């Protein structure tokens, strides 16, 4: 595996009480109709990029997102709506974890390789990120709504000066509960 440096991070587990207000400031407007999980993801990703001194990702960077239960709240809402007929279109879209990838792409005005994955072991994700990343590294996110919420992001780059300690950052990035189900 390539040696990676943490050039930016956001470890918000849980996020501060005013995270929604902060997100509105970061985006310049209140996000609309994207759902709580996606808002939480945008919040952490924007802070992580700012910490890395970046406004967007380079074209050769990749975006990887993981979660334990991702869109469970939106999925529950969509299933409840079906008791009366069809789900609302936007609620249905919010059930797809990949919608957050699209939102981040649009927010960063960036087109590139982005993927949602879940694994039992965070190291497996790192291994895959390492195998798929280009020279501009990866933005790695772990977002969940449960237990007060968490939005943890790392900006990892090969051959770059380290801003944060890698081992400590990676350990904090994916909370221990995420590895509860060993295969």
């Amino acid at each position: 595996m390539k040696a990676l440096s943490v050039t930016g991070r956001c470890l918000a587990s849980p996020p501060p009480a005013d995270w929604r207000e902060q997100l509105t400031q970061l985006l310049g407007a209140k996000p609309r109709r994207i759902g709580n999980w996606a808002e939480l993801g945008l919040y952490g990703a924007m802070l992580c990029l700012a910490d890395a001194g970046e406004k967007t990702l380079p074209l050769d960077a990749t975006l990887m997102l993981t979660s334990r239960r991702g869109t469970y709240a939106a999925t529950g809402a969509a299933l409840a709506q079906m008791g009366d007929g069809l789900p609302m279109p936007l609620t249905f879209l919010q059930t797809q974890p990949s919608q957050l990838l699209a939102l981040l792409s649009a927010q960063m005005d960036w087109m590139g390789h982005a993927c949602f994955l879940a694994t039992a072991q965070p190291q497996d994700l790192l291994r895959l990120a390492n195998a798929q990343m280009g020279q501009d590294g990866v933005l790695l996110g772990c977002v969940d709504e449960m237990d007060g919420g968490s939005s943890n992001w790392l900006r990892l780059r090969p051959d770059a000066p380290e801003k944060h300690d890698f081992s400590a950052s990676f350990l904090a990035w994916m909370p221990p509960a995420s590895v509860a189900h060993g295969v």
Partner: protein
Amino acid sequence: MKPVYLVGSGLACALGLTVKTSLTALSQGRDAAATRVLPGESTTCFPYRAMADVSGDWNERARTFIRRVALEARAEKARDGALFLATSSFDIGAMEQGAAVVDYQAFADQVANCLQWRGPVYVLSTACTSSLNAMMAAHALLRSDEVEDALVLGVELSNQLTLGGFAALQLLSPGRCKPFGRDRDGLVLGESIAALRFSTREASFWCMLGGANVVDGRQPTSASVPAVVSMYQKALANCGLTADAIDLIKVQAAGSPGNDAIEAQGLRDSFEVVPPLVSLKTAIGHTMGASGAAEVALLIACLEQGVWPTYADVVDATLGVHLATQAPASVRRFMASILGFGGGHATVVLERA
């Protein structure tokens, strides 16, 4: 770097419950259309490409089909490698029956236990491009020597939420899927489970060279021309190829009025001479997260056995592209593309070894 071989495939879809029976049904032009009634309604129904039924609830049905396609792909030879579960709907059908909750690792554990898997398991979801992205992830992991074997398992089974969601978005055709058709009026959904087994230690007739995935979030529910062009350019560059090296492209062409036109323009902008095109959506429906793996499995069988899909509908001449009415004389390399929700645009490149 070691070549990545596609060494086994398995398929259960509306055409049949194996690659062979699916191919036979395709060659005989069998129409496997079923219908599904919309959630909450008693009369409104849409065509749906359903698999032959087996008894049991959603979980039991999933286990049965997963074991079948895994056996066909000889997945037991890869159990120490990486397993990539590719899906857009996860086990939502079980949730509808009160037999599951949204928990990706619990879903992964269920499938892993069913296959007696020993290696790492990844659940990958990028909507309709899921299994092509799983193929690219498997390819990258194999090329990096992290594993010697990998199994991509596309899983998309019938459920009410997906049908209801697509209906709510007004994306479904009330009739037939008409890829690049003049009278195209929407998608026909379907279900499938497909397995593709890759290896760097076992050789076969087909190699995966690579691919590209481009997310363009400016249009989160549809494709974009710049992203289609970027996808083809990146895939060719990643594989060290030029456009004239491609002999065939399996397109998305799901029959969407808007997306088919965007895809056609993207093809024209990417290729000076657009290679022969093929679509399998009419035969098996749009099987979303499983579609990439299912269509690659079926296409390779078509190429090896000289079977070709037929299209009943008139192509839209304004699109400037057409579907090949017979198999190209010789196909050394093909691309397989899927465009989907979440601004996803993905393509993979396979080559005869």
